[in-house]
């Protein structure tokens, strides 16, 4: 514990959470891409199977078995039923595989209701991949998780501890112990939060960090602030801008560049006020939390997909000083 925690990309397990709509998947994909660009072999796991993570690599959907979606980046989609089947095969050596099907389905049904079971099947699979890699049985240098949204992440990462409280004995209890240890190791794991500089995402980020520190032993990594609008003007610039919006300059500019001048000036005013509204939230985030902040600029691009993932990866790379 005395040595400082390693840089984010030198850890083995990075979780990305955030409020819905902030670009959590894009940031997770960008981290995976960035790591791969630095020669790492990365497994990226999509937990909430919306199925759009692989879009960010311009690749078709993937299943529970990892598939290479970009050089050095392997992706898989979490599925608790598959996770349970794998667990049963590996740990219990249930003799007749054919009989696992209905039993697994029944267990999956119970898992929907019994607390923590679904979560443990999710986090268990993730941590298992990391342990396999640490012990040389799997090739992952880094596992990146496009994790549950802020509302569910604590239940998910806290599942091993919660299960230990509920289950007195049995193999599950023993296994949750190494899971908790691995999740709590700052040399291995970091939980990162993605936010945009808006009211609700900032509130949720601040609340989440507090809750994680109170209830979990998972180390926090960074806050990635996505879609940061550029600061257009200095104070001196702004005086000029205000002067430009007076009737006479508008008339003269219209004479030289055409009738679109008021629209262009309105556009700049809109940009300034959007930035200003967001700056308040950004400041609140920065002053409330004592975590490293990585800023990703708002991207004014037409497309989505791999090109955007690359741009975000580049921005994060710069922020990390790579």
């Amino acid at each position, binding site marked *: 514990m005395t040595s400082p925690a390693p840089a984010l990309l030198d850890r083995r397990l990075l979780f990305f959470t955030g*409020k*819905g*709509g*902030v670009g959590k*998947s894009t940031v997770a994909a960008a981290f995976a891409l960035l790591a791969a660009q630095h020669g790492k072999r990365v497994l990226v796991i999509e937990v*909430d199977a*919306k199925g*759009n993570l692989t879009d960010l690599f311009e690749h078709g959907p993937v299943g529970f078995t990892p598939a290479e979606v970009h050089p050095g980046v392997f992706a898989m989609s979490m599925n608790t039923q598959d996770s349970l089947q794998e667990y*049963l095969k590996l740990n*219990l050596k249930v003799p007749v595989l054919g009989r696992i099907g209905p039993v697994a389905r029944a*267990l999956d*049904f*119970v898992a929907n*209701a*019994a*607390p*923590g*079971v679904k979560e443990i099947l999710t986090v268990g699979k993730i941590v298992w991949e990391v342990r396999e890699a640490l012990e040389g049985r799997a090739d992952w240098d880094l596992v990146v998780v496009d994790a549950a*949204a802020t509302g569910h992440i604590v239940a998910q990462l806290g599942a091993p501890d919660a299960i230990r409280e*509920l*289950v007195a*004995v*049995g*193999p*599950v209890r023993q296994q949750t112990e190494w899971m908790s240890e691995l999740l709590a190791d700052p040399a291995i794991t970091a939980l990162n939060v993605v936010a945009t500089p808006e*009211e*609700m995402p900032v*509130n949720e980020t601040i609340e989440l960090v507090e809750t994680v520190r109170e209830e979990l032993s998972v180390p926090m990594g960074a806050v990635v602030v996505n879609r940061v609008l550029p600061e*257009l003007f200095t104070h*001196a*610039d702004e005086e*000029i*801008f*205000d*002067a*430009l919006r*007076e009737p*006479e300059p508008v008339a*003269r*500019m219209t004479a*030289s*560049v*055409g*009738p*679109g*001048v008021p*629209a*262009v000036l*309105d*556009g*700049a005013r*809109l*940009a300034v*006020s*959007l930035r200003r*509204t967001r700056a308040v939230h950004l400041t609140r985030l920065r002053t409330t939390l004592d975590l490293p902040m990585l800023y990703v600029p708002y991207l*004014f*691009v*037409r497309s*989505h997909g791999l090109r955007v993932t690359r741009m975000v990866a580049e921005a994060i790379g710069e922020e990390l000083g790579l």
Partner: protein
Amino acid sequence: MTPTGTGDAGRAGAGTAASSLEPLLAAKEIVVFCGSGGVGKTSIAAASALGAASRLGGKVLVLTIDPAKRLASALGLEGIGNTERRVPDDLIRAAGIEPRGELYAAMLDTKSSWDELILRHAPDEVTAYRILENRLYTNLTSRFVQSHDYIAMERLFEIHATGTYDLIIIDTPPTRNALDFLEAPARMAEFFGGRLLRWLTLPYRMGGKRGARVINLASRPFYQVADRILGSQFLQDIAEFFLNFQSMYDGFVQRAESVERLLHDRRTTFAVVTTLEAAPLREAEIFCQELRARDFHLGALVLNKTLPDYLRGRDGARAASRLVSDSATVAESLTDLGEALADPAHTARVLRTVGQSFENFSVVAKREAELRSELAHGPEVLIDVPGLEADIHDLGGLVAIGDHLFR
């Protein structure tokens, strides 16, 4: 996006669609706002309720799930639990509108809603408290994801049944899958009526109260596996919990079926909210399709936080591009118009920034327009709500949104 969603058909559809929520809010008793996270459902729901109360009159309730703090305080909801509260008329007047009707607001408290539900359906108090005190119960109500979905619909039913309100507007909980809450009542009924649950609790029911523990579980493959994974004590806890829960079976199932009926009733409509970004829009489209496939009434699609049209204008694009390329000349021509414009080099720099910023935002505005034109056959009502430059911190902000919803 969808096979039928050609740009032309989309544009034609968008052109003929009505652009006001007013007829819908005047005709329906329940409006359910749904959509993926971060699209602004809560604000749209609150603005609709405020608009309905002030323009249409009557008693209007907005049931929100997790409002931003400032929105909650704008509605007078700070620190209030499950109870409905009247939004004071002077707050509404202060926002510049005259309330014709009465506006009420409530927040959903999942935990206490569940507790009330248990107390209502349990056969006796002993069973009720045995459930409420069960350590699995707390976990179940706070962590079982679908419990939020179900309880929101349950609360809606409960409030509607009192007949207190002319119109109830409900904001839906953020879900992993926006469809979850539609299925929640059916799933809840299925769960409590399910063969599996009966099967799971069978040994306990057969064995009488305490004899249950000695029933031969090992003979069943399900228990064999479950036992090895979870440990028998945990399994037994679960079974006992569900056994208690099952005593409420009839009440629960009837209730869930009533909730389901209410959602399908013609008095209920759904409004899907989305932004013009690829991922939320795709989800909104799937959601519209699913609502139709399940025979729910799809009333409106609200496109929220859109950029203003002028960003896509040809004149603007031309002017912006020339302000960038001819910044020096234009700046020179303005030097006599006051002290602020006396330094042409500085003015030229500002002009370039202004032009480039327009070009940047126009790229995004065009992307939005493209996504909008790809919308397949949307509902009859399609509404654009431009992004507000400031956060909503009072009812005035909601009035501003309302101006776009009631056109």
